[in-house]
């Protein structure tokens, strides 16, 4: 997952798409969605537990949480990458009936994920056609919080990395939920 993210950054640079406005930090946001041909209850059952990330995200080896789905629960996400890099995340809000939760990074090395102070929302909704739509959205700053960031820690790198994480998870979730 990490290597994929870096590869994307390199790819963007090769295309000359990295714009030159990399000055002071302003918060970035992205939202990725996936349409799934499965009822929302089935999809929610897969993703609803804060400690279940490893069961549906292909880049995650384990994701144990200390207080389940209680606000304040802290999970340790170990990535499938050399050296078993990990990130620590905390559950900020949880709404079972609304099929949504909000969590944030608590202890994250920018070498693992080139972002700072991120929070994310995962939300499953009925798409009105018998299936569901899952949205994963996030707010974050780039990894380098001062002026003139190195390219691997600028706004584009942060956006590319988080997009890659969300996309990989959502696409795999679709496969899992649509499996017969």
């Amino acid at each position, binding site marked *: 997952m990490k290597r994929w993210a870096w590869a994307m950054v390199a790819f963007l640079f090769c295309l000359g798409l990295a714009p030159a*406005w990399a*000055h*002071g*930090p*302003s*918060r970035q*946001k992205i939202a990725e969605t996936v349409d799934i041909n499965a009822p929302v209850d089935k999809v929610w059952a897969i993703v609803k537990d804060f400690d279940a990330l490893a069961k549906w995200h292909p880049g995650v080896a384990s994701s144990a949480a200390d207080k389940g789905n209680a606000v304040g629960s802290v999970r340790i996400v170990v990535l499938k990458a050399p050296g078993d890099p990990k990130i620590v995340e905390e559950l*900020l*809000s949880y709404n079972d009936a609304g099929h949504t939760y*909000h969590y*944030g990074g608590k202890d994250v090395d920018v070498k693992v994920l080139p972002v700072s102070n991120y*929070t994310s*929302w995962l939300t499953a909704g009925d798409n009105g056609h018998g299936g569901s739509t899952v949205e994963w*959205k996030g*707010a974050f700053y780039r990894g380098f919080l*001062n*002026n003139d960031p190195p390219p691997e820690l600028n706004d584009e790198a942060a956006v590319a990395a988080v997009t890659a994480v969300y996309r990989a998870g959502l696409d795999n979730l679709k496969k899992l939920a649509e499996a017969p």
Partner: protein
Amino acid sequence: MRAHAFLLGLAALVAAAPAAGRPLAYITDQGSDSIAVVDVDGWKVVETLEVGRKPAGVAVAPGGDRIYVSNPEGSSLSVVERGPDGRHRVVAGISVGKGPLGVAADRTGKLVFAADWYADQVHVVDAASLKEVSSITVGRSPSGMTVSPDNARLFVANRESDSISVVDLSTFVEIGRVAVGKAPFGVTYDAAGGTDGKPRLLVANVQSGDVSVVDPVALREVERIKVRAFPYAVAVTGDGARILVTNQHDDSVSVIDGRTYATLAVVPVGDYPEGIVTAPDQTHALVACWMDDELESIDIAKMTVDRTLKVGSGPRAFGQFIAP
């Protein structure tokens, strides 16, 4: 978003200018490099103006005819004026420091202050000449600012120093520093005060999740109010009876009794609420919800959201963003 801003711009050309005397809100849309001018009573965006890069801070000067917008990534302030016809235009863009974020006008309209996030300074700009006339060294990563009603003091929240700098506006020198909670960001001056009738500063401490109440004369913290995760900015009604705090990571606004400091309600709002002010009639508060690209209106008596309005991308509205 470009197309969106463009359409709004077209709409502004054909829409009638709001009548004088109607409150207007100026919302910095950081992702759109623009500000939205909102007719609060009519509850619609009436104009969209391109400003500098990644606008965040905003301050309406006394009288409401001039609006200052900070562009942290453009290292500049945009100066917006409201003409006699009610239309707005950007009349100047001036280079200010490295990363101006917080912005405040003094009570006379003669000076503008811009807090430089990177340089740990507040730049002082003369409103008539639009030249920088002084700079004040403060704590680390200065952010929110407010000026005392007698125009004698400027208070600056130093996010990375966990303090409020107190600046003498006759000399532009920091004369004191008050320790508050962890990572203070927004600071608001309340002239009405609490039960003792003394004025107070209300400071949102992002990382300690609370609000510091500071005596602006004795220069000490007198109370600490627990709120939800990542409080960002504070609004207060003119009579001091209600304090409203945006909780950025809780997607809510805490409504607090201004006398007892009890939390009366935690109102769910859009995601990532940031700037908040009370409307001139004091019945509503306006909240910019960054993640949802919305301005929301809270009925203060009912403690519920009664209106939402789509604005540009990433509204911050950090500062005093409403004109009477």
